[in-house]
């Protein structure tokens, strides 16, 4: 087995054990198993994690999330200043080039964000931006509607990644040919099979320039098949390892397994409009009645951290003050407080994949001890989202990993009711969220967020369950693998040892 | 004594099926002199086809088993031959025509090829020559040679039967076994085919075993008749012997069952009852349950052969050497 020098390694010879490098020549290709096909490569046209992986390769935003610290730091921007509460100025770094060779200027930035605003899907990340203009080639000025602390984080989101203005105007199809400033250049996409990228030589950030020139993504939907492909040497990196395979891979010295506690929070979403779940006592009973340890053991083979709070743990501002714990007596107390007959409570939970089904199954088993009846309903993703959006559900298992704590607590604001389960129609909380949003000062804001979390902990609008341990398994020869709790992977940081 | 083309001695054949052992032939004997035609007459299930298949060594096995007996073709014991040697004999020294022309031909092979196949096997001709000869054979049975390229479904029943005959005759066999060759055909066609067979038989000086249940056909083309009942020949003789000096009650019954064009007035006198169950034959005479003249001895003892003359014998307890000649000749 050996590597190919060819930048497009889908030509038919890359079969077999590639990773058994016998000295000398260094591999120049990294093959990654992808769980599913990205729906789109256009930044503002999708909200899928796989799509984001692809976007992160070819694009940059003004800001980015630091994978290790989870802090929002400048990316294309050299720096930014907050002129007054609603006016922000960003200055671009020097020597930023697009893949097509043109320079990236402030005009491009402004045009990109204006463009993003035209996509309905990006609304949550663009609607606070009132105006954006290029002051000069290097400087961009953004004015927000209200004082808005979430702006840097929003700008780090893929919706707001930067593309060449020229191409926007010419109606370029970014889906079939992404052109950005990112560390990798898009080469080809064999639908259903693979995507190929090649390192971008003129990447503006010398430190984060791609070290492995060729990057191949193989679409392998079956978890078991992914692991086997890794073991057989057909792929070098698997970012979604089925928990059942973790032990074996760990004990195999040909592979490294990196374990990260994700900030992705899995929760039982409850439709607060429905009887009797509009009663906080019922929700709390459920909250206290679910044994997170069981859930983690069964659904995740024990690879996860339980969470009883109203926010993903690990963010600044998280707190378990006032949070539930597993306590059947307490749960029963809440049921008594509610006063109804527990056996009259029927909670159908919709699940869009196997893990969620597993989670719901444990919940079913747990809550049956309280006499609450749970129905596990597994649906496909589309139905799941459709039911969710239509409010046509009682319970659902969902997860969320926003890039920062503010974004997380924003979901408890009542005007997000349509989109998020768990939106409280609670004026008090609304006010608190709006207050935190407009607090630009970090420390002050985080304090406010903490208060929000404390408050919401007691209301149980959504029942947090766990944050999974994520496993990246990869060839032991691969170096530079960073572990980000957000789930993102920096392929450009990786190198062959 | 004239040379015998085929001689079957005491042939016993059984079909060992799930529902019992069918005793198809119970010591059947027959012989045909060179150039002569023997008619084998009997009801359904009497074992006529089985006898023909036995000669060719084609009794389906399982379930068929030749238990005992001899089959001599020109004096050679066929039962002693290997499969390969039998293949050499089939179609060459002995050929057989089957009852149903509709199913006797391979539907996906041209008739020319089907005739040529036998020629290729036995005369070692190449395909082209064999085909040419096949076309000649076709013409001989009255089908234009151009039609050799056609498939069986393009032929009518009568023509198919001619093709089957052409196949059988293609290597000028010494013995032709014709198993009810015209039963499936209309009378006018039957007449054509019989006429043709008669001519060809003479032309090739073949011996022929004509299996049929139609006494009319026997009268027309056979020299001798064997009447079979439950796997045994119960009466045998020349045409004159059997037709004019009928002795066996079964043969008598057969004649009386026939509506006769010549004298209509009489009512038919059918044989009572049915052939016995071949898995459970009566101890004595198999015809005994249906016989009007049945005696006690018929029930328990198999009747011996009684000869009326050199060529004519019956197996019936009614007769012995003394009384067998008594009956008057009668005209039919």
């Amino acid at each position, binding site marked *: 087995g050996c590597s190919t020098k060819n930048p497009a390694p889908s030509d038919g010879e890359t079969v077999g054990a590639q990773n058994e490098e016998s000295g000398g020549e260094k591999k120049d290709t990294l093959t990654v198993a992808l769980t599913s096909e990205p729906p789109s490569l256009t930044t503002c046209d999708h909200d899928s994690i796989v799509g984001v992986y692809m976007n992160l390769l070819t694009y940059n935003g003004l800001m980015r999330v630091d994978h290790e610290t989870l802090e929002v730091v400048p990316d294309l921007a050299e720096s930014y200043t907050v002129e007054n509460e609603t006016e922000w100025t960003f200055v671009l770094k020097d020597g930023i080039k697009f893949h097509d060779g043109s320079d990236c200027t402030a005009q491009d930035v402004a045009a990109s964000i204006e463009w993003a605003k035209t996509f309905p899907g990006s609304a949550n990340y663009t609607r606070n931006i009132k105006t954006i203009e290029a002051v000069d080639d290097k400087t961009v000025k953004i004015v927000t509607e209200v004082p808005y602390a979430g702006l840097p984080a929003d700008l780090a989101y893929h919706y707001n990644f930067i593309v060449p203005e020229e191409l926007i105007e010419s109606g370029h199809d970014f889906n079939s040919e992404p052109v950005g400033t990112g560390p990798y250049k898009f080469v080809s996409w064999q639908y259903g099979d693979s995507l190929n990228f090649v390192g971008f030589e003129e990447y503006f950030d010398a430190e984060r320039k791609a070290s492995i020139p060729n990057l191949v993504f193989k679409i392998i939907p079956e978890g078991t098949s992914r692991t086997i492909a890794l073991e057989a040497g057909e792929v070098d990196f698997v970012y979604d390892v089925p928990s059942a395979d973790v032990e074996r891979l760990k004990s195999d010295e040909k592979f490294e397994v990196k374990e990260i506690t994700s900030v992705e929070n899995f929760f039982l979403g409850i439709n607060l409009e429905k009887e009797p779940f509009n009663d906080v006592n019922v929700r709390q009973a459920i909250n206290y009645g679910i044994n997170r340890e069981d859930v983690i053991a069964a659904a995740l083979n024990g690879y996860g951290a339980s969470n009883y709070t109203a926010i993903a743990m690990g963010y600044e501002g998280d707190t378990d003050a006032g949070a539930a714990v597993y306590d059947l007596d307490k749960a029963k107390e809440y049921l008594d407080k509610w006063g109804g007959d527990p056996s009259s409570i029927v909670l159908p939970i919709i699940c869009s994949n196997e893990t969620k089904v597993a989670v719901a199954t444990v919940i079913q088993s747990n809550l049956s001890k309280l006499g609450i009846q749970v129905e596990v309903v597994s649906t496909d993703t589309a139905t799941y989202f459709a039911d969710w959006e239509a409010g046509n559900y009682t319970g659902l298992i969902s997860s969320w990993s926003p890039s920062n704590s503010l974004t997380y607590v924003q979901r408890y604001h009542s005007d997000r009711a349509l989109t998020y389960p768990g939106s409280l129609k609670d004026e008090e909380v609304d006010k608190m969220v709006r207050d935190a949003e407009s607090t630009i000062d970090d420390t002050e804001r985080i304090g406010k967020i903490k208060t929000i979390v404390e408050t919401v902990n007691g209301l149980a609008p959504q029942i947090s369950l766990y944050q999974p341990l994520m496993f990246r398994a990869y060839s032991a020869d691969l170096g530079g693998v960073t572990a980000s709790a957000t789930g993102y992977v920096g392929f450009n940081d990786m190198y062959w040892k | 004594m004239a040379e015998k083309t085929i001689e079957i001695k005491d042939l016993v054949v059984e079909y060992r099926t799930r529902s019992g052992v069918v005793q198809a032939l119970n010591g059947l004997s027959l012989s045909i002199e060179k150039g002569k035609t023997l008619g084998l007459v009997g009801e359904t299930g009497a074992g006529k086809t089985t006898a023909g298949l036995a000669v060719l060594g084609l009794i389906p096995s399982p379930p068929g088993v030749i238990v005992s007996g001899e089959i001599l073709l020109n004096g050679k014991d066929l039962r002693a031959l290997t499969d390969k040697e039998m293949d050499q004999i089939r179609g060459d020294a002995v050929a057989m025509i089957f009852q149903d022309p509709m199913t006797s031909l391979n539907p996906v092979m041209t008739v020319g090829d089907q005739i040529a196949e036998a020629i290729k096997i036995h005369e070692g001709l190449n395909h082209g020559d064999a085909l040419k000869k096949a076309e000649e054979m076709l013409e001989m049975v009255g089908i234009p040679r151009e039609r050799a390229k056609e498939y069986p479904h393009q032929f009518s029943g009568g023509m198919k039967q001619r093709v089957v005959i052409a196949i059988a005759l293609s290597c000028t066999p010494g013995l032709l076994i014709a198993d009810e060759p015209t039963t499936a055909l209309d009378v006018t*066609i039957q*007449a054509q085919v019989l006429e043709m067979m008669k001519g060809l038989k003479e032309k090739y000086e073949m011996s022929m075993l004509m299996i049929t249940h139609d006494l009319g056909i026997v009268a027309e083309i056979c020299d001798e008749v064997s009447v079979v009942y439950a796997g045994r020949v119960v009466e045998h003789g020349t045409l004159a012997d059997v037709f004019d000096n009928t002795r066996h009650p079964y043969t008598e019954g057969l004649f009386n*069952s026939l*509506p*006769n064009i010549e004298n*209509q007035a009489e009512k038919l006198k059918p044989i009572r009852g049915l052939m016995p169950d071949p898995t459970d034959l009566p101890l004595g005479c198999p015809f005994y349950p249906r016989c009007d003249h049945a005696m006690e001895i018929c029930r328990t003892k198999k009747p011996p052969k009684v000869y009326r003359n050199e060529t004519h014998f019956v197996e019936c307890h009614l007769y012995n050497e003394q009384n067998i000649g008594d009956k008057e000749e009668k*005209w039919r």
Partner: protein
Amino acid sequence: MSNSSSPLLEVKNLKKYFKTPKGMLHAVDDVSFTIDRGRTLGVVGESGCGKSTTGRAILRIVEPTEGEILFDGEDIRSLGKDQMRRMRTRMQIIFQDPFSSLNPRKTVSETIAEPLKLNGIITDKGKRMERVAEIMEIVGLAERLYNAYPHELDGGRRQRIGIARALALNPQFIVCDEPVSALDVSIQAQILNLMDELQEKMGLTYMFITHDLSVVHYFADDIAVMYLGRLIEKAPAKELFRNPVHPYTQALLSAIPVPSIHNQRKRILLKGEITSPVDPKPGCRFASRCPYASSRCHSEEPQLKEIAPGHFNACFLNE
């Protein structure tokens, strides 16, 4: 009831065409005849000449294309479905194949009882059973076969069931579609005798279809010869055998093998076989095989004419 001296069945210009992929198949083409009460009409002809179709068309098992069928003076073709169903109690059919004409899933008694039940003739089950036993006795079926299935029986017995089924309704008229041709001679004779007896006893009228001339000779009063959908000759049985007029009838008669070694007949061998009944060419349909065919025969269709009392013929030769 109309006058008993009129014929029981009168068929006028009966036609039955079948639509086939190759064209219109003239199975029965303009056939007319009558059958008197208590008599038997034998219908003979080669395979495919339309004998069965004629029989079936008379019972309206197949719907005639054209023509008139008067049964006991009543025009059958104008009857509605229910009336026709009632009419069928008076006209019945017995089929050629004793294997395929019996429902293998019904026992002997069920088969015989069915017409009684369906037509509501005997509604009481016990009485019906008695009647079935009676009929079985009439046709010579042993009582012990009461609950036997057809496949357990031999051809002769099966044919008796077919006859019993037809008799159950006490019909006046029975179409017998080659009821004995599948049987061995000895059995055939048993059945023929039975049918003969029944006719005498019950005054039945038969239309007896067969291709075996010696059988009709024995059995029928009148004989109709069909060729390719046409009726070409019809005469009393004796007359027909003594004096066949149509060349085809002559050939047909001469072709019968006679089970006797003394009076063998002179054969008239016909060339070729019956041709396709699909869109037949004008002219006599027998012309292509007829030894006497003239050019007229190829262009003009001979009509059935009475050449002697009761003797009809369709051929130009004898005009």
